């Protein structure tokens, strides 16, 4: 199948993006969930929450437009990237990853924040009184209690990156093996009236996303016996 590289590239992008978002997102989500409620902290917290949620409401073209400017060799980020790596950010896989990180941010942060908020201060105090230091509390109390939430954060970030289109179109273009992801390939097929290929890819994407979401909701529903 001629579209295999597009599928592999999409999976690579989704995996990279959601993995990086998990690493960067956990401390941020924890901070948002645990921020004490004095008024200054509340203001800064609300502002950060709004920034995290912004990609939910903005058209991807707006994001893509500004990223493109930022990525250009004259742009601040683009220029330093060229200095560091010797290649441009715009129309590259690395550029796509950065775009996806922003685009999928709320889908990873919000479920993590919700799960961290549900962990009571008392259960952490209990762990502490039972002799657990900071790291042991993370491993033995926080992780088991937020397992389901972390899995759903990862899956949502992954699934959402799979379906990304607008941002990619703006900053990635359609370069095989570099930026030609499934959604772009479908668009391309439709434009060139290759409906057969468009069907194939679309159905693959539908089936895969449906399976992933079913698994996700099943693990959520099973949680009843767990917590």
């Amino acid at each position: 199948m001629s579209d295999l590289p597009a599928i592999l590239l999409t999976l690579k992008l989704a995996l990279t993006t959601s993995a990086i978002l998990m690493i960067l997102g956990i401390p941020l989500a924890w901070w948002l969930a645990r921020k004490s409620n004095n008024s200054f902290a509340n203001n800064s917290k609300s502002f950060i929450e709004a920034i995290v949620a912004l990609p939910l409401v903005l058209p991807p073209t707006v994001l893509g437009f500004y990223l493109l400017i930022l990525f250009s060799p004259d742009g601040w980020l683009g220029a330093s990237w060229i200095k560091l790596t010797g290649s441009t950010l715009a129309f590259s896989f690395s550029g796509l990853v950065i775009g996806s990180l922003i685009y999928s941010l709320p889908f990873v942060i919000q479920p993590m924040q919700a799960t961290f908020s549900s962990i009571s201060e008392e259960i952490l105090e209990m762990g502490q009184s039972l002799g657990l230091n900071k790291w042991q509390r993370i491993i033995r109390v926080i992780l088991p209690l937020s397992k389901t939430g972390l899995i759903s954060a990862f899956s949502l970030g992954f699934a959402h990156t799979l379906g990304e289109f607008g941002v990619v179109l703006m900053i990635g273009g359609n370069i095989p093996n570099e930026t030609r992801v499934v959604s772009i390939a479908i668009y391309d097929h439709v434009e060139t009236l290759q409906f057969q290929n468009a069907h194939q890819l679309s159905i693959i994407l539908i089936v895969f996303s449906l399976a992933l979401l079913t698994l996700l909701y099943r693990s959520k529903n099973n949680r009843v016996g767990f917590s």
Partner: protein
Amino acid sequence: MINVSVKCQFDEFILDINEQFPSDKIIGLFGSSGSGKSKLLRQMLGFDLNYQQQVSIQFNSKTWQDKATKQFELTEKRGIGYLPQTVDLFSYLNVEDNIKFGTKNQSLDSDFYKTILLELDIEELTKKLPNQLSGGQKQRVGLARAVISAKQLLILDEPFSAIGEDHKPQIMRLLKTINKNSNLPIIFSSHNRYEHAYLTEHLVNIDNGKVTQSGAYSKLSTDINNSFAQAPGAVNHLEAKSVSFDDDYYVNQLVSQDVQLWAGFQPIEKDRQVHLEVRAKDISIALTNTNNTSILNCLPVKLVASKEISRHQYLLKLAFNNTYLIAFITKKSFIDLKLKDDMDIFALFKAVSVLPISN
């Protein structure tokens, strides 16, 4: 010795405590809800640091916290077994793993572990998850976990609030045994006077964030000039020995300092030490030893002191050989009977108003 000196400002509540507790005894915090008992216990654990103004806590020779010199021993290093007011079990672990959570396997004495499970009646529950337990079972599991993990001190916040009366005596007995055998100081809070009458050796009475009285329980509980003894719910305790259980009448026969007593309806084994609890308002006074009443218990006592505590009531302090009892009577009875200090009189109380706890 445990030295606690804390001053904390919570939103609308000030906790201001300056106390010294003996570190080998069972210390009971008494006070109504909202008086600051839990907040004081939390200070000893090293919690609520944001509210502290001045704090110094010494546990024996160790400094747990001194705000002035910025010394702070982390909670996890204090070796405190802690049972909070609402038990928090780890939902993802079964009962056994919850109980052993704070112990490294090699340091747990398996005989001790088994005894605890047995006495708390949870040995059948070890493989269950917390959401399969009732409220009382959760509290007993939390208690087991606290007892198993306590190395220096056991802190129990309202430990019997969800525990049924059927389990309570043996659990209180267990705590007493642990305190004596393992030399483990216990601090518990409760607003239930019966629990204090059985367990407490050093009483701390707290009201509105301040200590109103503290000292040996036996002294404070019979001090009629003291608000703890003057409260309507005041409870007496009396040590006795079981003689037999009368099957015909379904009542226990006991003896205390050569005087025969009748108490309760649950059979107690022969020759056991029994701790009897009688409320001060359930004791009546008679000038002669009468047996033409339905009241079965009649102790010869000496009136030591009396105090008019309200417009209609007197509180009496009575000596029964070397133990003291207190009794509320009406002003009318006090005057009609012409009661005076040093009079030999009789203290009467019904067998059904006695709560016996066998040791």
